[in-house]
């Protein structure tokens, strides 16, 4: 690992104004539209939101599977935003991704040992003790029998395959792992095992983790900080306890209220989301959430709220009328 002087100073990952627009007929889809966040070394950040809010696109941007339309991504002091393959190469090993679908993410024609060793091979890394020993060690670490290294993906269950995917991501000893919905394709009974594995790995290896998930329980279990996304924007970001116990943004509150059987998060049943998120082809003016927000007022349609810190704490909210308290005056329904 390269420990440049730039590493010490700032956070491991710094994202500024990150934007990704997909050109389609009818104008660009604003999948990700101006994200700002940071991840410190060894920190876990959860990225939550409804389907289509740009979580997965963000994950793919972070590991540069996609090229951003705008903004910047800085990792360990290196600007990755538009770096080419040659520039990214030395950093690839430090920045890995775990995919959602354990069936699609493993090459069906390769034995799992070769799959796990792929990042080493591609980056021509010869680990101490050899690749074979490293693969054994990784398989043991993620709870797989190392004897099974010459078996093929189809011979494993979904949970085991996801462990293979995790072992592959760990092969190069990364400093940051992006986990894109790592458990949502698994049976509930298996989910807990994989979540606990991720937690143990974070603790033992000191990995920084960006966990992308729509599952608030999983995020609460794994993440120290949480960012809530809506239509390509972060609407609220803060420490886990602040987000779960003192949500300020109406959307965060609605999300928490929507979690079944965990009424203890936030004021259950008080805020209900109706309808679907608007299309990112043509997001609403001003605050993007205003079309579904029970607190929306005229100002929300005109002025886009900035992500601002409140009370000097670590929690930032993008809302004109944040907070759990009822609004001072009767809210005027925004024009649809």
């Amino acid at each position: 690992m390269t420990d440049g002087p730039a590493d010490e100073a700032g956070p491991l990952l710094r994202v500024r104004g990150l934007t990704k627009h997909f050109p389609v007929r009818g104008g660009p889809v604003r999948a990700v539209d101006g994200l700002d966040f940071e991840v410190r070394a060894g920190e876990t950040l959860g990225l939550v939101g409804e389907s289509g809010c740009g979580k997965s696109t963000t994950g793919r941007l972070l590991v540069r599977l996609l090229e951003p339309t705008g903004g910047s991504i800085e990792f360990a002091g290196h600007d990755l935003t538009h770096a080419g393959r040659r520039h990214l190469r030395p950093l690839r090993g430090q920045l890995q991704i775990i995919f959602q679908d354990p069936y699609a993410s493993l090459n069906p024609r390769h034995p799992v040992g070769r799959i796990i060793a792929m990042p080493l091979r591609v980056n021509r890394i010869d680990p101490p003790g050899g690749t074979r020993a490293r693969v054994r060690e990784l398989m043991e670490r993620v709870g797989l029998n190392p004897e099974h290294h010459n078996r093929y993906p189809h011979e494993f269950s979904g949970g085991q395959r996801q462990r293979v995917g995790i072992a592959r991501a760990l092969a190069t000893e990364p400093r940051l792992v992006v986990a894109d919905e790592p458990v949502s394709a698994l049976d509930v009974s298996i989910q807990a095992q994989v979540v606990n594995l991720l937690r143990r790995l974070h603790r033992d290896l000191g990995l920084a983790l960006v966990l992308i998930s729509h599952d608030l329980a999983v995020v609460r279990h794994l993440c120290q900080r949480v960012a809530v996304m809506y239509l390509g924007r972060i609407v609220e970001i803060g420490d886990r306890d602040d987000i779960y116990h003192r949500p300020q943004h109406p959307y965060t509150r609605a999300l928490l209220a929507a979690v079944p059987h965990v009424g203890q998060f936030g004021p259950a049943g008080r805020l209900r989301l109706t309808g679907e998120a608007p299309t990112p082809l043509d997001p609403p003016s001003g605050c993007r959430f205003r079309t579904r927000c029970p607190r929306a007022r005229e100002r929300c349609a005109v002025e886009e709220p900035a992500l601002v810190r409140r009370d000097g704490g670590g929690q930032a909210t993008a809302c004109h009328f944040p907070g759990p308290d009822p609004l001072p005056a009767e809210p005027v329904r925004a024009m649809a």
Partner: protein
Amino acid sequence: MSLSPAAGPVPAAIGSGGTAGPPRDRRGAGHSPGRLAWLRLRADRTALASGAALVLFLLVALAAPLIELTYGIGPRDQFQDRLDGFGLPLGRAGGVSGEHFFGLEPRLGRDIFIRLVYGLRTSLFVALAAAVLTSVIGVVLGTLAGYLGGWLDAVVTWITDLTLALPFLVVALVLPPMLTLRFYGQRDTVPAAFGVGVLIVIFAVFGWTGTARLIRGQVIALREREFVAAARASGAGPWHMLFRELLPNLRAPILVSFSLTVPQFVTGEAALSFIGVGLTEETPSFGRMIYQSLEYLQTDPAFVLFPGVVIFALVLAVNLFGDALRDALDPKSAG
């Protein structure tokens, strides 16, 4: 790729290889998808029968000179003394005897059996060589177009459409005489290998489009799979992508399209030789034989029977084996 237990006649030992967990194996090694396909193929009776027939055909074609030696008759030997005054073979069924297994050709009196053996050799050589060329061109162009996309994809697609728009028969009728004139004079003798070569080139030039389209589609589908993204996220170069991640997954479609083009070229060779633009008279060929036999359809029906049956059996065997191979490689496509 998960294997549902109902997907095919998988032997019980590996039937649990779906989602239930790793199957038992003596050495702990797993069954690769290729090995599973082989096991399925071995359990398929049609595959076994057609495969055995194919192996027999191949052996006969390869061992043609040996067969000539033991049979004692060459493909150009003439037995005029066994023909009657009209040039028709004496004896029953076109002169079938212990000496001439399939009888004799009328007029020239050549032995049909040994000519069929050499015809098989010609036919299989042309078909296999053309199929190999076709596959190579198709796989290279299809992979590049599918993987790199962009303007290269547009160009390859355009060339594909152009090739498909070319009338095969017209080109096949015009090109060989043109090439022959270009390289040999009006009166020169044209070596047999030249005709064979021209035929292979024509088949390859017209045959690659199907493979290219198939492979292009497969590559585009694979490109979006997450294991490819995983390799890209690890910094894999194009070489690793193509040869380690993509090609191993293209083996099945390549094999299947190969096995489907072979019978096409067998019949193609026969058809072109039949209409007289394929091979020259001195090269033994099914097409030439059937063409000549037409004159004797009423007087010596055995002459058309033997080459007809052999070519039918060959094409049937290749097709059946190709189908079985496809089912074994991709159980989901079976019936």
